[in-house]
């Protein structure tokens, strides 16, 4: 199937390039060398040099190169090189994060200029030095998840290198891989056929397709992107850049990827350790809810009544009062004007939540007003416990949102 809507399958690819982060996010590498980062969405993004290592392991040609975190570590070069900032954000070239060098002094100079460079909020801690390619043609090639078709999908374009998202749709091939058929050589032939390459290069590109698919399946990647896939002056096909994102849900079978640090604020890190989703925003209402959809609906409802959430915390499914207590303590550290507790108990029991909340209040002598709306399994018991502790009871979501918003707008 050739053609189709680009936007659907671009979710992940575009998210990687355009990830808009909140202002509170720390964007530095904690310690180097590291392979990459796990972002807020749980996407395990590998640095270019690590992604290239993985590609090389799967037989995809990459330029000779090495990575350093200090200019002094440069002892020899594989020839004329490019010095490239290792950051997980696009637009490195325009930001001065990629420089050519012909000899060791030049390479050291380029490296010291790039190391420490702030590229759209990301501090460069490592540079990759790799053999410079004689570029004749730049191709875009990637595999990602197509949600609608419920399959993997190849994307390819002869107009690689530039911002692929501004390339007209008819110049991008969207080729789903039928999961029942899997990868077969014809898939690679369709890709290289679309790119209108001479036979020798077509064969090499088809081979890269096969290996990229093999990589995605073997490593549980949700995105593997080569942009550009370079055709050199001597007719070789080489990965000029590489992006790989690993499915964090598959880490149980990829122990080697597990140690990636995360791109989180200190409070968010604490929350992560407790398996609680915690995000800091701009307002002053602290929202505690269970489940992503209900949390979002709570934010929507607050907004309707003029309130603004300052932090939200998704308990997920839990039946452990200790976890609820930790969540409350975490919330108090974020210092909201009012806390809105909105729990719909299923797996989570209401009395469990109430117990955890009360323990946290006692432990910290918390004085923050709390609007409590709890519903579902064991709601009577839970509500009685919270009411006795002086919380503002609410019966419906709208009522809770209204009360919390009013409280948050009170002039002190």
């Amino acid at each position, binding site marked *: 199937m050739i053609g189709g809507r680009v*936007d659907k399958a*671009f*979710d*992940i690819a*575009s998210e990687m390039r*355009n*990830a*808009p*982060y*909140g202002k509170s996010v720390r964007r530095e590498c904690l310690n180097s060398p590291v392979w990459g980062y796990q972002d*807020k*969405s*749980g996407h395990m993004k590998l640095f270019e040099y690590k992604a290239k290592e993985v590609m090389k392991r799967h037989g995809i040609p990459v330029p000779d190169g090495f990575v350093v975190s200090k200019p002094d570590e440069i002892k020899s070069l594989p020839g004329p090189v490019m010095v490239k900032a290792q950051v997980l954000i696009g637009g490195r070239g325009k930001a001065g994060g990629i420089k050519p060098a012909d000899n060791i002094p030049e390479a050291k100079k380029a490296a010291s200029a790039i190391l420490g460079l702030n590229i759209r909020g990301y501090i460069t801690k490592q540079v990759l030095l790799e053999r410079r390619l004689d570029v004749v043609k730049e191709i875009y090639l990637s595999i990602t*998840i197509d*949600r*609608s078709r*419920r*399959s*993997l999908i190849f994307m390819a374009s002869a107009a690689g290198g530039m911002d692929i*998202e501004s390339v007209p749709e008819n110049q991008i091939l969207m080729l789903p891989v*039928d*999961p*029942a058929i899997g990868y077969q050589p014809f898939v690679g032939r369709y890709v290289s056929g679309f790119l209108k390459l001479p036979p020798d290069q077509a064969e090499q590109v088809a081979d890269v397709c096969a290996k990229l698919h093999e990589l995605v399946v073997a490593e*549980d990647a*949700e995105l593997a992107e080569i942009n550009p896939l370079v055709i050199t002056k001597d007719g070789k096909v080489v990965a000029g850049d590489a992006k790989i994102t690993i*499915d964090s*849900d*598959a880490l*149980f*079978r990829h122990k080697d990827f597990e140690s990636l640090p995360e791109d989180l604020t200190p409070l968010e890190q604490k929350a992560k350790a407790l398996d609680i*989703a915690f*995000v800091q*925003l701009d307002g002053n209402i602290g929202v505690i*809810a*269970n*489940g*992503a*959809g*209900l*949390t*979002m*609906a709570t*934010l*929507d*409802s*607050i*907004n*309707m009544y003029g309130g603004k959430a300052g932090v939200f915390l*998704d308990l997920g*499914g839990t039946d452990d009062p200790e976890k609820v207590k930790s969540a409350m303590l975490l919330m108090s550290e974020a210092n909201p004007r009012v806390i809105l507790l909105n729990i*719909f*108990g*299923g*797996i989570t029991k209401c009395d469990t939540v109430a117990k955890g909340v009360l323990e946290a209040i006692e432990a910290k002598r918390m004085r923050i007003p709390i609007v409590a709306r709890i*519903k*579902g*399994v064991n709601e009577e018991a839970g509500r009685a416990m919270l009411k006795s502790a002086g919380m503002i009871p609410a019966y*419906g*979501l*709208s009522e809770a949102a209204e009360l919390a918003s009013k409280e948050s707008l009170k002039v002190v």
Partner: protein
Amino acid sequence: MAIIVDEKTKLVVQGITGYQGMYHSQAMRDFGTQVVAGVRPGKAGERVNDIPVFDSVKDAVDGTGANTSCVFVPAPGCKDAAFEAIYAGIETVVIITEHLPVLDAIHIVSVARSRGVTVIGPNCPGIASPGRAKVGILPSMIFRKGNIGVVSKSGTLTYEIVNAISERKMGQSTCVGIGGDRVSGTNFIDVLDRFQADRQTKKIVLVGEIGGTSEEEAAEYIKNNVTKPVVAYIAGRTAPPGKRMGHAGAIIARGRGTAESKIRALEAAGVKVAKIPTDVPDLLK
């Protein structure tokens, strides 16, 4: 009539000896579901809540005539469990398990579709037809028998909306929680198609959230195929861009998959869209 689960559902619970399996097998039975078997390799002959436990799904099917499975098996063993159910001839597999690798989901869904097996989930709360049967973890007390079909990507938000509908003395034919993962066995369109054909269902409620494009695709489908009135709510209208709320699906990417784009598409298809969940019952009147 209801859809997917009803009085004829004979349920086997995979992973019945775990905490959730135990708790919810009883809750499902209390709801009226025929819970005929449980599976836990190595525990054949035991009973959980007086439900017989078998070593394999095949033994459970041979011994009890089970036709539907509810999978509580944790992610590393989930693909195996789902395929075992399909292999044993189960017609409907409801996967509650969360954090299933997306490539496993793609594989399971592909095989299920080619065999005509219905998979709901992964990472979903399940499905309930009030007065008939429930398969999954949805809280029983929120339901009321009636003629509104509910389909939702969310978990607790589904409960919120079903509860709001029931409190206004309106009931549900079937409520399907399809799950919010990137790849799901059953999507909005699959369920809309069934609700349109179901005689008990008179009105439909669709609950979506930001991220992905399945709501936009549902809107297109509704425009061309659904004649019953549809009311929708899209969670995340005021969510900050680029921040995920714990769901793989809830990602905003470059103006696509936004609440605005979904609401616009649904309204263009004649769907009434509620601003907050508690408005849904008003729009159903």
